[in-house]
């Protein structure tokens, strides 16, 4: 090969080598860049750092009256060229490239009619040839990505843009398009994922606040309910001793009014009044302790003795209601370990309820039956059964609820308190219809035997 041809070939190889290195640097940059503007500016700077391209600029189309192509990044020499030449959709290679979506090049700016309007300015700036590449690419599905802009390159020499060079530059423009599209997609994705996370956090926080508020309201409501229950319990439980005090006081008055006064009976009535007064005090303490959940003193209690004691207390009431009492008490039951006063309260409540339940019965004799037996090896069963009108099936499951009552002037606390006491002893209290009439209440209590 003659030396001149050899020299030309070497120059061409060197140029290709430099272009390859430049384009590799561009690709490397595009893979790492984090913002669109940085990508556009960096690519212009890399392209003009070598000695091949004198000017590189990127422009986007404006849908303005002048239909301009607005430079958004530029680097190289004679940058004032861009201010002196108007680039629009209808003027020059950039406009043609954007409109046709094909590279548009001029190999000799000084003579090509396509550069007629700006050739002198370009030539003054030292540009011999130029190329405009549309910022387009195709995604994996073959869909066109069109950024609506162009990458524009200016070279000092003439006749540079052969098919291979045009293809190289078009590939670079395609890479740039992909990079920009990816960056724009990331911005939306990053923001969306950030907003979603934030919204989820906000929802969690609101749910927690709502839960705390509900808990606080519940606690407040519970305190109010408990206060109401305490007041109602005390009022209910104190009612019986007070009634007994009044009854015994009346009895004492009657015995005193007799001629001669029956002082023995008066003394007995006064003694009972004192006992009931003490009991009232104990009941108040018991109810208070129950709600405070404070431990009460427990003692060994004989079940049958307990039943007999309560029957004694309630004898005046039993007589007033004219009710027959039957007892079936199993002997030698194991003792209970319990609070005597509280169990007396329960038994008294159940007996008083039974007496009142039989008030409306007129076609048969009212009978109150109390039984005690072993429930199993570790517990005792006490039943209180009446022959009254019974409890409506629809009310049966609510009779132990606080403030539920079927009595016109009832407070609805008695059975709730009873159940609370029995359960605090580890036992249970239930009710069921009795046959053929009335209701039976079942008290199961654990024995005190370990």
């Amino acid at each position, binding site marked *: 090969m003659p030396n001149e041809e050899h020299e030309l070939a070497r120059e061409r190889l060197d140029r290709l080598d430099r272009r390859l290195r430049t384009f590799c640097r561009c690709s490397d940059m595009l893979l790492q860049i984090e913002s669109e503007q940085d990508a556009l500016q960096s690519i212009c700077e890399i392209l003009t750092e070598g000695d091949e391209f004198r000017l590189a600029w990127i422009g986007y189309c*404006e849908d*303005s009256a002048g239909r301009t192509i*607005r430079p958004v990044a530029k680097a190289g020499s004679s940058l004032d060229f861009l201010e002196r030449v108007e680039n629009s959709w209808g003027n020059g290679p950039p406009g043609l490239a954007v409109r046709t979506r094909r590279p548009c090049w001029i190999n000799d700016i000084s003579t090509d009619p396509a550069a007629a309007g700006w050739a002198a300015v370009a030539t003054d700036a030292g540009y011999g040839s130029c190329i405009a590449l549309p910022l387009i690419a195709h995604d994996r599905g073959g869909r066109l990505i069109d950024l609506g802009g162009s990458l524009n390159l200016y070279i000092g020499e003439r006749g540079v843009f052969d098919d291979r060079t045009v293809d190289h530059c078009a590939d670079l423009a395609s890479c740039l398009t992909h990079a920009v599209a990816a960056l724009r997609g990331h911005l939306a994705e990053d923001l969306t994922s950030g907003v979603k996370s*934030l919204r989820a956090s906000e929802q969690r926080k609101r749910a927690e606040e709502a839960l705390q508020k509900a808990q606080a309201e519940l606690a407040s409501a519970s305190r109010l309910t408990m206060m109401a229950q305490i007041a109602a319990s005390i009022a209910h439980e104190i009612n019986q001793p007070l009634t007994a005090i009044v009854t015994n006081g009346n009895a004492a008055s009657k015995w005193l009014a007799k001629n001669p006064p029956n002082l023995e009976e008066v003394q007995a009535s006064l003694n009972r009044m004192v006992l009931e007064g003490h009991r009232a005090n104990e009941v108040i303490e018991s109810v208070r302790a129950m709600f405070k959940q404070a431990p009460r003193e427990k003692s060994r209690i004989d079940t049958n003795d307990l039943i007999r004691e309560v029957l004694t207390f309630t004898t005046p009431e039993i007589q007033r209601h004219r009710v027959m009492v039957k007892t079936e008490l199993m002997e030698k039951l194991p003792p209970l370990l319990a609070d005597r006063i509280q169990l007396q309260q329960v038994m008294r409540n159940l007996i008083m309820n039974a007496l009142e339940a039989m008030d409306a019965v007129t076609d048969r004799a009212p009978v109150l039956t109390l039984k005690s037996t072993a429930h199993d090896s570790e517990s005792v069963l006490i039943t209180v059964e009446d022959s009254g009108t019974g409890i409506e099936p629809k009310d049966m499951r609510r009779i132990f609820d606080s403030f539920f009552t079927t009595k016109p002037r009832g407070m609805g606390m008695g059975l709730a308190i009873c159940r609370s006491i029995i359960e605090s002893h580890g036992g249970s209290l239930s009710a069921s219809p009795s046959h053929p009439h009335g209701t039976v209440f079942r008290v199961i209590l654990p024995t005190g035997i370990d």
Partner: protein
Amino acid sequence: MIPTEPIGSIPRPAELIHGIEAFSAGRISRSDLDVLHHSAIRNTIERFEATGSPIITDGEQGKESFITYPLQGLENLAPDGMPIPFADGHIRHLPRLIGGPFRYRTSADVYLETAQRYAHVPLKQAVISVSALSLLYPQGGLAGYSREDYLSAVVAEQEGEIRRCLQKGAHVVQVDFTEARLSIKLDPTLGLLEGFIDLNNLALERFSAEERKRIGVHTCPGADRVSTHSAEIDYAALLPNLFELNATNFYIQLASERDRPRVLKMIREYAKDEQRIFVGVIDPVDPRIETPEEVRERVLEAAEYIPLERLGTTDDCGFAPFGDDMSRSRDTAFDKIRSRVVGTALAAKALGFE
């Protein structure tokens, strides 16, 4: 009466702009600059009131720009953030966050308080949207400060800012959402716009329905100097999503739209019944001063599409969203505002309002 409100910014007086430059160069003190600020604010409010405006602003005389005012003086920002290119070729750069945590340095209620010293009519206060500030977070992320942490901080700051403005008696608080159309330019799939709407709603949802009656949103293609950044984006892409924002008042650029009836039809279709629409009847970018009669005709045109009880008027944009913008004069701005006020009143009379 048809309500009429400004967007917010008025060109700063030359002496204030030069004073800011002098302060930056260390030639004058902070107190000297404050004197210039107060003088500009007082003069702006006096001139605003002289136009007959029922609702005014302080002309944003104290703000560096409508977007960066909360950030002035923060040390965890770099100046080379996202670029906003404008049609005439100039570019504004948003700051870039370089570290957390993020807090506002100045919130807008400070400006409101200052303006209240001089105003005799109700004041409106503009605040920047959360979505605009979301663009400060670098795409590559920040070690030790996640995007979620940043967005959470921005939402909290805006909530506090709006709440204080309302408590201090702002007639309305307007959220400047001018990046709406720009987001479509950046992401034609609308993913970014939807993210912006969702993010702004995260802040707006913290207010009650009653409070939101005094909250509004402004959108426009972003005026700066004599140019815009996204005027070529069709409203058809924006409006269906815009009205999903949980605000009551919408201030929409319209005077400079090529096909106003088309946009008005879209507003009628997509705006919700409880939303009031303030249509732009003045173009701040156009140096010509519209006549009151022209404004009247624009209002009457809008009234064919928007029920009167939900119609208001405004300017397409502020007259100087960026503080260093000297492309328009204060005289031009106030003359245009006067035309809007008078023209709106003429339209009200023509429509049978007292």
